């Protein structure tokens, strides 16, 4: 047990030890409605206070990294959907950018804008899920319904563009599967209006709500120093007052052309996390609006026959395109990035999502390592919940927005 954890528990342990009391062990999970996915927290209580906790993960481990080594570069894309399944597009984009960096190609401007717009929609659905679900766990079921309704509109928009709601596999190495639909602007304007309406409603319901404030304010505090030491990124680090955002610090796609703010908190408690996420959704909306104004016409995919399949019409009518098609599809041929490695970070819903891809020059990845944003957050849970009441475990855990898919891979 680290020194910091010992400091957080001043007297409980010694007092109860003197009285000869044993802490009561309580198991939350692996299957528990508030444990969003499968994770187990073994908490030891003295009264209502958590004095010892052990976080056990790995229940959703499906060997993503091992499987990726046996698939071709493009076949890995559907597996990345299943990493963070509330913002799958960001995973797709992160993986595609890493492989493109390895090959040394860049998607045309319109493709980059489309990727950015879809990523930001994903971020909005991510935050809607997080805030909605944690509000529901505190009893605010109405807020949950409002946000899930707004999320539904965005998922319909995603479905319209990509053909699926969650398992979308939207990117390919060198591009995306489909361009935005012709009526995207109007549909987005409708979704944005609905979102702003429900955000105003939820803001009115929660932000000054006595019960909500009592449960969130000053709960689950992780200060700046400890957040940094744990390697926190994303909304949790920003809530602790560090304005680190991969989109600002290491801009990828066309984020450097957009005007946006990185909201920060000061205390690093649950309430700051809630406010940071709410503000990020507003920023994402603003970003999509700017991107829709700037987006140029033109191709969405790279015109590089080494990575992109030729047009189907051409495959059926001329021999070069047919050969090109088979060269990309046959086992042992396909996309072959040069031997080397790349670490590419993007800003996921929960923080820095990094892909470390290693190529040995063949048509299959040699190694794909994911830096899941939740992983360091979950490592910090133990320290966050110690000394808190057992009922506070739920909002703390909800504010982390743990996604077992990317945590356990």
């Amino acid at each position, binding site marked *: 047990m680290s020194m910091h954890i010992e400091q957080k528990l001043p007297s409980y342990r010694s007092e109860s030890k003197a009285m000869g009391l044993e802490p009561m062990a309580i198991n939350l999970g692996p299957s528990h409605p508030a444990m969003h996915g499968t994770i187990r927290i073994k908490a030891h209580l003295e009264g209502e206070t958590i004095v010892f906790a052990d976080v056990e993960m790995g229940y959703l481990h499906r060997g993503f990294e091992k499987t990726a080594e046996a698939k071709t570069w493009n076949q890995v894309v559907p597996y990345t959907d299943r990493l963070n399944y509330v913002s799958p597009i960001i995973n797709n984009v992160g993986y595609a950018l890493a492989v493109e960096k390895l090959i040394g190609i860049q998607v045309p401007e319109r493709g980059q804008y489309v990727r950015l717009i879809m990523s930001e929609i994903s971020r909005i659905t991510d935050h809607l899920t997080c805030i909605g679900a944690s509000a529901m766990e505190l009893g605010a079921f109405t807020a949950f319904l409002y946000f899930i309704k707004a999320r539904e509109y965005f998922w319909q928009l995603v479905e319209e563009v990509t053909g699926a709601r969650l398992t979308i596999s939207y990117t390919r190495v060198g591009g995306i599967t489909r361009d935005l639909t012709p009526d995207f602007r109007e549909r987005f304007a409708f979704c944005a209006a609905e979102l702003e309406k429900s955000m105003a409603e939820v803001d009115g319901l929660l932000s000054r709500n006595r019960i909500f404030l009592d449960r969130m304010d000053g709960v689950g505090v992780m200060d700046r120093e400890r957040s940094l030491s744990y390697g926190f990124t994303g909304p949790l680090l920003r809530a602790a007052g560090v304005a680190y955002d991969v989109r600002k610090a290491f801009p990828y796609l066309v984020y450097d052309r957009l005007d946006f703010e990185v909201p920060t908190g000061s205390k690093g408690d649950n309430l700051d996390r809630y406010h940071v996420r709410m503000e990020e959704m507003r920023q994402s909306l603003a970003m999509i609006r700017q991107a829709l104004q700037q987006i140029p016409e033109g191709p969405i995919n790279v015109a590089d026959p080494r990575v992109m399949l030729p047009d189907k019409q051409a495959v059926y009518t001329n021999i070069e395109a047919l050969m090109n098609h088979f060269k990309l599809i046959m086992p042992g041929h396909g996309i072959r990035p040069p031997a080397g*490695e790349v670490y590419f970070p993007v800003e996921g819903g929960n923080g820095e999502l990094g892909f470390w891809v290693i190529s040995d020059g063949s048509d299959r990845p040699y*190694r794909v390592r994911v830096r899941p944003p939740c992983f360091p957050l979950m490592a910090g849970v133990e320290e966050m919940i110690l000394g808190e009441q057992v009922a506070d475990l739920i909002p703390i855990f909800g504010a982390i927005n743990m996604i077992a898919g990317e945590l356990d891979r």
Partner: protein
Amino acid sequence: MSESALYQKLASSLGLEGLPEESLGTVSALVVPAASWHAAALWLKQQGFSMLIELGAADYSKHPLPHPGRYAVAAHFMALPGFERACLKAYVPAESPALQSLCGLYAAANWYEREAWDMFGIDFPGHPELKRILMYEGFEGHPLRKDYPLGRMQPLIPMREAVDYEAVRQAARRAGQGGA
């Protein structure tokens, strides 16, 4: 690249010269000897690199290019407020791979090192509780090693026998004929 100047200072503070750098696309990594792993991280921390963003491992045993050791561990650090990044990489040999734990420097190292141990069997002396994290207790081997077969199964409970549908169908047919 600004990292090179930093890496030269780091190498000279360790009393080493001519440490190779590897490009990771977005950042370049300084390859340090396994014995200097902790000292290099400590130096970075003293220079203001207060975050350990990522720590991951890889097994290069089947890689066509030569590497100075079978396994490599790469750690990414970041300094505030300018968000400068640095990356250290250390190669460890196939026999008893080990690197000194960074848990004393960064709280983040705890789980990352547990994962590297679980997946690759790299030992981290000085880690307070090096146990499996993704796999379960009692699991044999380290699954992300290149010599661990992809299809190997280690079920915790015995698998059920597959139903022989053809036999079921035939039995149903016989029963149907008898009835008619």
